[in-house]
């Protein structure tokens, strides 16, 4: 497990109040989107800078793989660029992007599982989910805030969870989705999701008590 795991936080996001319709911030967002729709990459960069932290955090936690998280983050914003026409503005841009990100990660995970099932049938690697355990997210050169050790322990333990349990834990306990919403996103039954969540919590408690 890498020891240089560190997370670059922008905590202002956590306390931010969503801008109301008609607020200057929302108007500014609408103008940026309008410019981006017309092909203005500079305007899209502003959108990217505002939202990339949350998208990347989600991708990083769900994949436990920094390289894949970067690729997925790119894909999310490429998708968003392609679909700007379909963004109607009645929901927050951040929520819209977040949905795209969740979908990208889930689709990528399914595709990856299928491909590995086809190509690596004879490869005796054991539990396919075990791969995640050696891929803790790693970023370097970051100053750690107070209480970071505790957070890092938790982040590290999350990254070591089996993929299915990790996905449900991240979506339910970190991102705050309810089981019925996760069920719609993943196509899994709510009972299955609850079992995965219990498993994740149990494994995390065991890992953190060591």
């Amino acid at each position, binding site marked *: 497990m890498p020891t240089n795991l560190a997370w670059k936080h922008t905590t202002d996001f956590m306390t931010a109040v969503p801008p109301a319709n008609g607020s200057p911030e929302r108007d500014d967002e609408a103008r940026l989107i309008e410019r981006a729709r017309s092909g203005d990459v500079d305007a899209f960069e502003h959108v990217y800078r505002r939202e990339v932290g*949350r998208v990347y955090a989600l991708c990083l936690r769900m994949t436990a793989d920094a390289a894949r998280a970067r690729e997925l983050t790119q894909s999310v914003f490429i998708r968003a660029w392609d679909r700007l026409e379909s963004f109607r503005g009645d929901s927050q841009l951040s929520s819209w992007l977040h949905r795209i990100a969740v979908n990208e990660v889930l689709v990528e995970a399914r595709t990856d599982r299928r491909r590995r099932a086809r190509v690596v049938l004879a490869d005796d690697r054991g539990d396919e989910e075990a791969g995640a355990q050696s891929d803790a997210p790693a970023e370097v050169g970051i100053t750690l805030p107070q209480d970071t050790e505790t957070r890092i322990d938790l982040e590290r333990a999350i990254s070591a969870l089996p993929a299915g349990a990790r996905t449900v834990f991240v979506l339910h306990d970190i991102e705050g989705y309810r089981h019925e919403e996760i069920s719609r996103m993943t196509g899994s039954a709510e009972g299955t999701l609850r079992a995965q969540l219990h498993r994740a919590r149990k494994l995390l408690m065991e890992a953190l008590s060591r």
Partner: protein
Amino acid sequence: MNQNREHPDFEVISDLLDGYLTEQDAKVVWEHLSVCDSCAATHKSLAGLVSSASELPKSVLPPDALWTDLRKSLEDRKDVVLPTSKSVVDGLESTDARRLSGRMIAALAVAALLLIVLSSGITALVLRNGATSLAVRGDRPIPAEATPVRPGAVLPAGFRHTENEFNRTIEELQLAVDTQRGQLSPETIRTVDRSLAVVDSAIAEARAALLADPNNQMLVDLLSASYQRKLDLLRRTSELGSRT
């Protein structure tokens, strides 16, 4: 659970925390927690874990170079046309009630067959000097395993992103098609499935060949064309499904 001395399972405590227990069951568990230090400690630890998780930063910044790469991709994309979800959704929402014609089903199958014949032929040509000779046996594609792939072989870096893009779009279209299967006749479903199986074999073959010879641009083009063919088949099937 009707007695306080019976320890609740971890799952029950976890459900209690999430509010998934009935009022009556929750009451029983709470009563147990009030007299059982061990279970109360589990509950407290679990509550702490859930609280800590919810307080983790929701934002983590990626390396700055990500935008540079992304910008280049966006500018490169101006000439690339891949089907978007919007087009899939538009197809699903179509109210056009035309029946699926036999000619269109046949077109799907013929297109797939042509693809496999062409791709197998080209792959065989490209790999003619390799250790393995590729050919088409009747209408059956040669499985990907026919092309030897050295351990640890990877696709060209530049193609991996493209392949991810194809796979995501294919996945979306596949989901759209899957939701429409009930609206298609069994004959149509069989034809579509056969066609898709043929195209999948073509993709697997081209992919294996590219893994064996990653610097071969012709194989990159061939694999891209195979993916594109699958997209076309799925898109047309999705459109047809929405019309029936």
